[in-house]
Each structure stands twice: as structure tokens, then as C-alpha cells.
């Protein structure tokens, strides 16, 4: 395993932290998308609200899923 010479920490551990940090930020973005979709479907109702809300929630679940998988397998 590659380690940083002076600190003795694995490079991949640092990479994992960065990946997880990025995925947390992405999860927040997915939350914003859900909220924005809610606001927009309130602004405009055309009879297609459920599929769009479902899409935004699916995206949020996907983001959470990738974060959990990264947390477990990395």
C-alpha cells in the first residue's frame, strides 16, 4: 500500500476521505434538487408532479446509496 513518507498515512485513505467529502456535498445538492422540484411543482401544476417528484427522490436515494457503498467498500 502506498503511504505518505513522513506521515505514514495511506494515500488511499486520504483519497477515500476526499471521495466521501465530495459525496456528502453531492448529497446536499441532491437535497436542494428535491426542495427545488417541490417548489417548482407548487409554482406550476400540469398534472405531471408525481413522476417528477419521484425522479428527484430517486436521485437523492441514489446519491445516498453511492455514499454508503463508498463508505463500506473503500
Amino acid at each position, binding site marked *: 500500500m502506498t503511504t505518505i513518507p513522513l506521515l505514514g498515512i495511506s494515500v*488511499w485513505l486520504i*483519497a477515500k476521505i476526499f*471521495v466521501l467529502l*465530495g*459525496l456528502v456535498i*453531492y448529497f446536499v*445538492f*441532491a437535497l*436542494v*434538487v428535491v426542495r*427545488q*422540484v417541490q*417548489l*417548482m411543482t*407548487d*409554482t*406550476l*401544476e*400540469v*398534472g*405531471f408532479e408525481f413522476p*417528477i417528484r419521484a*425522479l*428527484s427522490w430517486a*436521485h437523492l436515494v*441514489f*446519491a445516498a446509496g*453511492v455514499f454508503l*457503498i*463508498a463508505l463500506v*467498500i*473503500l
Partner: protein
Amino acid sequence: MPDIFISEESKKEDLKPEPHLSEKSKSKVQKEKFPGSTHNPLSAFCYYPGNINFETKESKEKVVLLLRQHPITNVKWILIAFLMILAPIVLGAFPILSFLPPDFQFIAVLIWYLVTTAFVIQSFLTWFFNVYIVTDERIVDIDFYSLIYKEVSDANIDKIQDVTYKMGGVVRTLFNYGDVLIQTASEVPNFDFLAVPKPDQVAKILQDLRIEEEQEKLEGRIR
């Protein structure tokens, strides 16, 4: 023999407009069929859609037209999304991520698909929520610039000063879509209905509504 004297009362009666004329013309306009107009929520040209509701809509207000950009404008992002979906499969044949451990390679692919999903959602929502609404009282422009920024502006029909429509180019002529540029005397001076289907018919509908509104003004039937 010509009448020498006509009483003031009969003169007034002559000048009186037909009371239900505008209602008649309204229903006539409603009955007109525009080919390609449906009530499908994903349609780009909905004429008298029954089930539309928006935030600032008044109870008596009737939505005459709901417009979006022509569906053909979505082709670009659909193609990009398709390539993004295929990219990990195609690039799997080349050892681009081989410097990463297998776990990281797997997560990289998942993150790639996450980004692809975000791109698809953002592109679709931008098209879906970027709508132009024409009611019997005003025009409303709902702009959904990105996932975190939206803008809603409206102007009364009687504030419309000029309507211009533009159609040009091979694709636009082929699929019959273009821009309708509306100049108003309201706070927002320009309303641009960009890449909407049948711009000529949109301009005609706006013209009819302006005449209707002027007639209502003359008859003193302003809401």
C-alpha cells in the same frame, strides 16, 4: 323618407354594443382547433389546457396557452446523456482507471453515473419548467435557469405593445418552431418566448386576446 328627428334614447340603443359579442368570439376562438395541440402535460403547445394551475393564477383566470421549447431542442442533451451512459462501457476496454485500486474504479463508475443522472434531471427540468403561459388576462414567463435559480414574470395583455415572431434556419423551418418576441409597457419590457412551436399561431392568439381585451375595455367589462 329620411328621419328628421331621432330621439336620444334610440341613438343610445344603436350605439350600444352587442352584450355577449366578446363572449361569443371567445368561445369561437376556443372552438378553433390547432393541429398538434394536446393536453398532454409534456406537450410543448397546449391550447386551452384544462388542468393547468400556477402560483399566481386568479380563480377566474383562464389559461389559453401553455408553451415550452419545441421537444426537438432536447435532442442535444439526450444525445450527450446517451454518450455519457455508454462511456464507462466503451472506455472499459481501455485501461484509463487502471492506476486506481478496483474498489476506487467501481466507485468512480458509480460517481460518473451519479453525475449523468444529475445532468439528465437538470436538463429535463430546465425544459419542463421553462414555460410560457398565456391567460385571458396576461402573459406569464416562468424561467427555470438552473436547479437553484428560478424567475417568474408577468404582464397584462393590454400592456402588450408589439408582437414579433421569428423563424429561421433549416431545423426551425422543418419542425415549425421559432421565437415570439413580445414588447410590453410593463415593468418587464420584453418577453421572449424562445423556440416555441407554431410561433405564427402564438402571435395570432396573442393578437386575438389583445383585440378581446380592447373590446372588454370599451364595454367596461374589465376584471
